[in-house]
């Protein structure tokens, strides 16, 4: 099974950066019944139903009512029948279709036994047994061949006997040609001989063969005796009769199977869905993923959420994300290079995966269903669309926003001058703070900290000596970043403001020209 997202769900560059392909490849499995599945965003209702069904199955597995490993192994034996269904509906199944259909119903029966305590589509499952019975009546050897009636079997034997007769007669005929002409021929291959050949006159006079001159070559061909011709004709006639009987049989099978089509189509669809659920459960278990829990109130709580490409890259040094987002406006305040954008991307990754019905790499996640997820990252504008970075940001906010959407924005209105950016940030944050949605942005603007009714967060600071005596290299600094989020309570806003001088400290630790560093130090003192 190969999972794919429907096109344009995640922008191309972001999909690559967040390695959605890698995450989806965790679900790769050899399941002929589900070779490929395109995931589309789920509505809240369908999404909740989807995860509810997964949770129910999970319970059945935990209660040992389902043996998932065995079920998956058996599911892998079920063939894909998508190519058979239209023929079943149109009563035009051929012998090779019956084979796949028979294989499906018989392997499915074993699967049904494994699911005995929690059967799927019980109202239509009986059709599989009926199909199996019909196929067993008319086919043989695990549905691989049609079953012959005594009359058909007799006919088959007759055709075989005629075939043997024909071979014997042809062999005798070839020997006669050889005796009369010295020419070794094997029916049906003609022979090309030269006029200079020693036996040419014998060949020309032999009544068993014909000689025609074609360009500069004499072509010797066969003159079959009436007896041989009769055998050929009789074999041909019987063969046609046999074909006619087989076609009649096939028609009968089609007629018997057709009333079961609708029930079977429903069952087959259910079986494919159920197989998909089994795969999700197996991968969840194998990869230690989690299913989301849904709440009626708006908001999102993540515990130890992992962004897979970053987790893979940093291994044991990776710090998973823990965060509570409230309904309304949420602002992540903090210095550069503290991991604010990574927080946004991690949330986006999880919300998108849940929206598509997948388990996620986290210890726990509780939220309202993410029916709409919008993300705006800093951009350099778009020349083709004649939009500056500010224009792009403004355009982002013109999108239709459904109630309960998640809107994630990196560096809110950093795309314009600080005065205008601050004013716009305040206006938008105040507006979103009263809406039934989750708005989460990062910002440097200090003025937003004083806004009422917004939830404030900050990234935990880099812990290093202010008077470090050596130049810090970039990778060392990255290792020092704690990547942790703290909620800023109103009484701590003052401290948070002080930390706006952090970028100056950070810059001081890079091998910048001494003249610049001197000015930074003066600024810090002042």
């Amino acid at each position: 099974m190969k999972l794919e997202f429907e096109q344009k769900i995640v922008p191309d560059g972001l999909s690559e950066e967040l390695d959605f392909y890698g995450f989806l490849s965790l679900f790769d499995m050899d399941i002929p019944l589900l070779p490929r599945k395109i995931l589309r965003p789920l509505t809240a209702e369908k999404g909740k139903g989807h995860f509810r069904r997964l949770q129910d199955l999970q319970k059945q597995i935990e209660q040992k009512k389902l043996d998932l490993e065995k079920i998956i192994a058996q599911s892998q034996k079920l063939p894909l029948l998508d190519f058979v269904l239209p023929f079943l509906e149109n009563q035009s199944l051929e012998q090779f279709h019956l084979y796949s259909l028979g294989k499906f119903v018989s392997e499915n029966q074993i699967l049904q036994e494994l699911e005995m305590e929690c059967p799927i589509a019980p109202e239509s499952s009986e059709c599989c047994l009926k199909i199996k019975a019909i196929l067993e009546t008319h086919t043989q050897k695990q549905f691989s061949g049609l079953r012959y009636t005594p009359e058909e079997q007799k006919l088959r034997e007759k055709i075989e006997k005629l075939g043997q007769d024909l071979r014997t007669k042809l062999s005798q005929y070839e020997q006669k040609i050889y005796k009369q002409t010295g020419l070794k021929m094997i029916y049906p291959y003609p022979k090309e001989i030269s006029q200079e050949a020693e036996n040419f006159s014998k060949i020309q006079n032999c009544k068993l063969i014909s000689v025609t001159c074609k360009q500069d070559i004499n072509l010797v061909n066969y003159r079959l005796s009436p007896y041989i011709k009769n055998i050929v004709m009789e074999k041909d006639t019987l063969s046609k009769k046999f074909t006619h009987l087989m076609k009649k049989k096939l028609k009968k099978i089609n007629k018997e199977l057709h009333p079961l089509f609708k029930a079977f189509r429903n069952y087959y669809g259910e079986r494919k869905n159920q197989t998909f659920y089994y795969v999700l459960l197996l991968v969840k278990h194998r990869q230690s993923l989690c299913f989301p829990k849904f709440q009626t109130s708006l908001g999102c709580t993540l515990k130890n959420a992992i962004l897979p490409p970053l987790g893979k890259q940093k291994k044991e040094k990776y710090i998973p994300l823990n965060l509570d987002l409230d309904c309304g406006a949420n602002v992540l305040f903090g210095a550069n290079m503290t991991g604010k954008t990574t927080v946004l991307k991690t949330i986006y990754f999880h919300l998108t995966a849940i929206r598509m019905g997948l388990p996620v790499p986290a210890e726990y996640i509780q939220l309202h269903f993410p029916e709409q997820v919008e993300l705006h990252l800093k951009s350099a504008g778009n020349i083709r669309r004649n939009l500056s970075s500010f224009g792009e940001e403004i355009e982002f906010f013109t999108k239709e926003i459904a109630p309960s959407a998640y809107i994630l924005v990196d560096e809110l209105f950093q795309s314009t001058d600080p005065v205008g950016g601050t004013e716009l940030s305040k206006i938008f944050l105040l507006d979103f703070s009263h809406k039934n949605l989750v708005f989460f942005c990062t910002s440097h603007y200090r003025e937003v900290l004083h806004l009422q009714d917004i939830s404030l967060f900050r990234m935990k600071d880099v812990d290093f000596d202010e008077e470090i005596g050596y130049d810090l290299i970039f990778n060392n600094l990255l290792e020092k970043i704690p990547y942790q989020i703290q909620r800023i309570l109103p009484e701590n806003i003052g401290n948070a403001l002080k930390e706006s001088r952090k970028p100056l400290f950070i810059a001081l630790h890079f091998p910048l020209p001494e003249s610049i560093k001197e000015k930074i130090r003066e600024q810090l003192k002042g």
Partner: protein
Amino acid sequence: MTVSRNSQISSGESRPYKPKKAMKTLSFIGSDKNAGKTTILNFVYRKLQENTKGKTPICLASIGINGEDIDFYENQPKPTVSLCKGSCFITAGEHLQEVTGKYKMLHNFTNPDFKKIYVLGECLFDFQIILEGPNNKHEILRMKRKVEELLPQSYLLIDGSIDRQFLAHPAISDAFYFVVLISTRKEQFQKAKDLLFSLSLHTCSKKQNDFLKNSLEEDTKSLLFRENNQVLYCGKKIPFLDMKLKKMCIKYKNRKYSIYLNGALSKSLFTFLAPLKNLTIILDNFTLYQNISVHNNHGIIFRPKLLLLYPVKVQRIFLKQETSQYSLPLPENIPVHNLFREDIHEIRI
């Protein structure tokens, strides 16, 4: 016999195949339409049946469709593939209507791995059938894997086509039967002559071979490299359409270098490369040498050295001679037969 050959056939050439543990894939290609490919396929199939006394499964398949009913040139019915009871076949589902009940199912090759539904079946009767199989390398390889799984130690006979270059890849074919039409039509005759020339091409050195096999990726269409194995260019486009490849060839024309091609050495590419005397061209396999002639091509003298990456694995050449007036230089060490002129009993496969 009016056909000349460069040297005598070595002794022991006509040893029959001994069934090995693995499946053996034999592909059939013809130099032209009506070269008699199906006739030879039928012949080799019957001979294999005799040789193996029915103990080794034989499966017949085709690249694309085999089964034009009518001879394009002469408006005569064309031979079809005649299968015997116990043999296996692969064909598209739509060709099985007339043989319902006469075969036993072994496997259905279905989408999405295959663009069409192909059926692997075993004959319960003798019957004639139109063979149709996948037309691309990946599907053929998948098909082969399944046949090998279901019919180990079998022979897979593929009715191929000279313009399906992947057929010469060692993962696809273990050996070839090459059917050559010696026609009175000038163009056909030249085509046969050029194709026979391609069979006598030598393989590249072990050093080049090792280097290429380590450097090539699945989608590499061309690779330009120096004697010290420094890669100058790696192309993913069809070589004759790859402008960058041509630019690089010009850039290095005064130095000694080699170019690997995994795409037809087309007439335009041939003309372009013809003056490059320092160049060694290594074709992936002999089927890439098509519709061109290094000997006589409208006065163009072809200066590069021409080699092959994969050796020519032509087991036998079968000739169909429309005329006795023309003779063809035949490659060394490949047995040549004329089914219609020699004692058919003596022809070994």
